């Protein structure tokens, strides 16, 4: 941007946030930092919340943009493939909620642990899965992340425990992972996600109790996208203050559409857990553009206007893009280039996912037990004995 003084500071107001632009020039090399201030998030049983500002560097901005765009495009491609009947069964899409998955991951380390429910494709990616493996799992091919045997709801990577189909069951599991972290003394934490629908599950309250009693390093995160399948939060919960539902567990509620907000809150929560204070609860206010799953058009319980309004005013990717563009952190062309690259990655993955062969039939009975000698499994009739290896 040409010759400039060595420091330049600008403060302005943009979309409910104050932004301080700070340009530092040294030896003809300039770095651009954005300090973004937002309003205090709602706190429960906490004296202080996460910091009210964050620093976004250009590199970070581009990385977050790329990852969110990848999730977005991947989910839209899955939509397409589902309508072509190449993906079957359940398919719960994450578009609209990208800032949650990306923001959380940037607030923790890959060596930490994470578990979520069935709207899991985004997390599978942020936790180390590739688009190829994810899409091939959706299409049920042998190159899928679970060799085609799990499907949409059962994807796993290192320190990522799925992908869980039973609403709420993942929450005690996540606390168990946190127990293991504490037991082994490895300073790792577990992020344990659930939705506004699951938030009323009894086993979650059982988990709050034990996690708090035993001071487990567990971040409970409620992704409140306002609808549990077709039931709005007001019709399902006597108290929709999900960040307070942990009662004796400190909680915070924040804008889940702002990736930086999510990042800072996650860092704050992770620090809370790592310092031995026990669990903490975060409520991310977010939104899903698709219905609950591909069999739900998503417009019988909410209006198209509502969906459109969120898209135009609060889309997480647009929000980040605007921030970066209006502050010259990146150019339109640069972001377009990322878009093109992402599109290509998705196309390649889809190509793989539709051409990779299905799993071989002799894999049918494998993976029943771990570390066991091969055994026989009864087929559909008494004369059919199938082979099973670990």
């Amino acid at each position, binding site marked *: 941007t040409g010759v400039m003084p060595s420091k330049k500071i600008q403060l302005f107001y943009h979309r409910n946030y104050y932004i301080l632009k700070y340009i530092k020039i040294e030896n003809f090399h300039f770095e651009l930092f954005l300090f973004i201030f937002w309003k205090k998030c709602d706190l429960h049983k906490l004296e202080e919340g996460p910091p009210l500002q964050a620093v976004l560097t250009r590199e970070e901005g581009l990385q977050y943009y790329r990852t969110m765009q990848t999730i977005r495009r991947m989910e839209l491609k899955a939509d397409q493939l589902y309508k072509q009947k190449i993906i079957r069964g359940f398919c719960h899409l994450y578009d609209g909620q990208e800032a949650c998955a990306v923001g959380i991951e940037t607030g923790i380390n890959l060596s930490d642990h994470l578990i979520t429910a069935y709207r899991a494709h985004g997390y599978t990616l942020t936790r180390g899965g590739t688009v190829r493996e994810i899409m091939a799992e959706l299409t049920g091919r042998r190159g899928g992340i679970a060799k085609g045997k799990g499907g949409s709801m059962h994807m796993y990577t290192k320190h990522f425990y799925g992908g869980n189909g039973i609403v709420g069951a993942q929450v005690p*599991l996540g606390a168990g992972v946190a127990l293991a972290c504490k037991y082994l003394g490895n300073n790792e934490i577990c992020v344990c996600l659930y939705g506004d629908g699951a938030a009323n599950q009894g086993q979650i309250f059982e988990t709050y109790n034990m996690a708090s009693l035993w001071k487990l390093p567990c971040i409970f995160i409620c992704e409140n996208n306002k609808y549990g399948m077709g039931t709005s939060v007001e019709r399902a919960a006597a108290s929709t203050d999900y960040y307070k539902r942990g009662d004796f567990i400190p909680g915070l509620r924040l804008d889940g559409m702002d990736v930086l907000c999510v990042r800072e809150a996650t860092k704050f929560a992770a620090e809370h857990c790592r310092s031995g204070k026990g669990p903490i609860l975060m409520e991310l206010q977010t939104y899903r553009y698709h219905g609950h799953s591909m069999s739900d058009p998503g417009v019988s319980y909410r209006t198209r206007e509502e969906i459109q309004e969120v898209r135009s005013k609060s889309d997480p990717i647009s929000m980040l893009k605007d921030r970066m563009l209006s502050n010259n952190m990146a150019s339109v062309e640069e972001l377009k280039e990322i878009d093109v690259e992402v599109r290509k990655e998705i196309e390649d993955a889809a190509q793989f996912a539709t051409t990779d062969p299905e799993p071989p039939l002799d894999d049918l009975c494998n993976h029943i037990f771990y570390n066991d000698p091969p055994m026989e499994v009864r087929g559909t009739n008494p004369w059919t004995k199938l082979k099973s290896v670990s």
Partner: protein
Amino acid sequence: MNTLLIVLLIIMEISQIHFLYVTVRDALNQALDEELERDERVFLLGEEVAQYDGAYKVSRGLWKKYGDKRIIDTPITEMGFAGIAVGAAMAGLRPICEFMTFNFSMQAIDQVINSAAKTYYMSAGLQPVPIVFRGPNGASAGVAAQHSQCFAAWYGHCPGLKVVSPWSAEDAKGLLKSAIRDDNPVVFLENELMYGVPFEMSEEAQSKDFLLPIGKAKIERQGNHVTLVSHSRMVSLCLDAAAVLAKEGIECEVINMRTIRPLDAEAIETSVMKTNHLITVEGGWPQFGVGAEILARIMEGPAFNFLDAPAVRVTGVDIPMPYAKILEDNSIPQIKDIIFSVKKTLNV
């Protein structure tokens, strides 16, 4: 007479024959203690397992020895703590999750089946779940309907689980150690009425590395006329019935299943091919039960052609368990029921 006894004792001492009688409870306690000592990742959680020394005293002394980190008292929240145990197993620990009785496991059955049993398969081998769910199963004495159900058939139905049902003290010790060392989810069905029963424990069984293989039945008594297949406490009844029948010249072969899943069909088939008659004996309800499965397998397998009479089942009566003693006694198989069924099968 006295001199004979003294001579006998001297001979025993010289030949170092030590008869050690150990109750099932103590055998389980030994197994837990040895495995906790052997592997730091093993830990026990459940209601009253720590400071109370165990609701049935199975974990007596363990909390004192191993402390809060490894012996954990939980609140009365089965679904929650079973899920926590499964999560800990996924993250690399080796939990033993105690259900005070398996009746309470119904509260947590989703975690046992959907989170533990199926995960290794759903993840195509990425995520093993090395966990043991243990506790007393089946009828007790006077505890009525909600506390008396047998879950062998329910858990035995599900792929991805191993289901073990020990009878003797040796069974209890060897099988529990194997279950804890197994890298897969194991449902370990104990029996409250067996806890206090003493059994002879061989030298071999007293060793710290004594293991019994999961999936292999044991022939407790050889016989030629009829095969009695049973598990857990009912094995005692079968042996008692066999003793009575022996006086009438009927020799029963008594098989102790030891494991419900995987079922040792081969051992049963081999026996049936010898005796030509089969009776299964279980405490649980008849419909879709353990006996039903065994009979189906015999029908479908090579032993069918060796049967001289239809194979039958002796089971608990198909009713919720009543309270009054006379009613309860008549709700589960008695020795006379086994004897009656043997004679019917042999047509004597």
